[in-house]
């Protein structure tokens, strides 16, 4: 049997249960076994459909093995996760995390997340521009100009000052927002030949590219949340993003430095290979498309990238960033530097 690290269940009417040291997924109607995954190799379970049930024994086995179970909706919105109780009792780290909000550490982190986002957006546009240098020199120059303009906002982020993150948040978010506007304009240019893209929409998007992005972010979100849990941090106490009840702002903070290189790049490459994004009868992403996006995003996390002078899987880099975040907060590390994609 193949080694399954990410068990994705996206079929209606299925049941997940534990048998010995494996999770087995069956069709409820026929009892036919669809897949079995040894817990030994499993890193997480992603439930991406309604009409899926899971047994208490399976939940317990996952909790004991440190395997989180994430639930995401058909549009990619994560609505629940089941993690072991043991991951919540990390008081030292959490105490440091809460206190950091009120001093310079919180500002340092918020800056780092915003810089990571802006840098990686710039790098993705430059990478895409390079591929078009021969074919479309005009587009190449246009994209290079835009990339430079996105990067200009990095200086605004670095200038944002204050004694804590609250005092600088407005400047940080507006710099990040202005950079994002230029970034999506560049993406629009990139998509020019394939579609007349209306620009970035988050909620309630009805065009294929935005819907694919949203779904991809939903899948990445689960990975970031898992990394945060495993590092002993509280996903709900962020720095750059304002805290609101039920809003996992630390996940939204850390995801920023990975969006472009994990999701945007993956969705662009799906489109560039001429794969079309399919819809079902309810104008939602078709199951085949959702599966394709989830698989490609998770595959992207398996691919090696340069990090701290070595090559590591992107997924491991994500985990290390979450750990660095925790060690920085506990005062065991001088600074926190965002992950910068090297293309």
């Amino acid at each position, binding site marked *: *049997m193949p*080694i399954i690290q990410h068990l994705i269940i996206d079929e209606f009417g299925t049941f997940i249960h534990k*048998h*010995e*040291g*494996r999770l087995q997924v069956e069709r409820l109607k026929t009892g036919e076994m669809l897949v*079995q995954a*040894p*817990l*030994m*190799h499993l890193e997480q379970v992603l439930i991406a459909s309604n009409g899926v049930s899971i047994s208490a024994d399976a939940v317990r086995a996952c909790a004991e093995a440190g395997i989180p179970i994430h639930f995401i909706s058909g549009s990619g919105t994560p609505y629940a996760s089941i993690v072991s109780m043991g991951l919540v009792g990390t008081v030292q780290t959490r105490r440091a995390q809460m206190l950091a909000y009120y001093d310079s550490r919180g500002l340092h982190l918020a800056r780092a997340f915003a810089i990571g986002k802006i840098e990686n957006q710039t790098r993705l546009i430059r990478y895409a521009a390079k591929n078009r240098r021969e074919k479309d020199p005009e587009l190449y120059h246009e994209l290079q100009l835009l990339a430079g303009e996105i990067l200009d906002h990095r200086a605004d982020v670095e200038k944002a000052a204050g004694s804590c993150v609250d005092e600088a948040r407005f400047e940080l978010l507006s710099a990040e927002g202005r950079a994002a506007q230029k970034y999506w304009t560049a993406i629009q240019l990139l998509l020019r030949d394939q579609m007349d893209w209306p620009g970035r929409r988050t909620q309630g998007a009805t065009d294929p590219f935005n819907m694919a992005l949203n779904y991809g972010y939903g899948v990445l979100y689960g990975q970031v949340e898992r990394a945060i849990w495993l590092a002993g941090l509280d996903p709900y106490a962020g720095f750059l993003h304002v805290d609101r009840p039920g809003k996992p702002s630390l996940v939204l903070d850390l995801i920023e430095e990975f969006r472009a290189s994990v999701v945007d790049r993956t969705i662009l490459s799906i489109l560039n290979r001429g794969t079309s994004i399919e819809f079902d009868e309810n104008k939602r992403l078709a199951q085949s498309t959702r599966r394709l996006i989830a698989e490609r995003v998770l595959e992207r996390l398996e691919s090696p990238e340069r990090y701290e002078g070595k090559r590591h899987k992107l997924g491991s880099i994500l985990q290390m960033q979450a750990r660095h975040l925790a060690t920085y907060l506990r005062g065991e590390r001088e600074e926190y530097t965002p992950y910068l994609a090297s293309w």
Partner: protein
Amino acid sequence: MPCLVIYDIPDDRVRTKVAELCLDYGLDRIQYSAFVGQLGSLHRRELMARIQRKIGRRAAKVQLIYVAEEDWRQRIVIEQEEKGIQA
């Protein structure tokens, strides 16, 4: 590097348990009492130790054989369902 696990275990209950263990380690069943799959050295030792515990003091013969990738590819297989005899 593929590993082949083959066994002869008279006790039905123990035999079933050993088969389940092989499946837990992600091995594929290729015969009634033969499994094959990729196992690192740590998992190989761990699996054999767990099988040993399951067997306890009962009669058993279990072998874990290491097969080089190339040799495994060169295996020759005959596999067919019962065919009706043509008159």
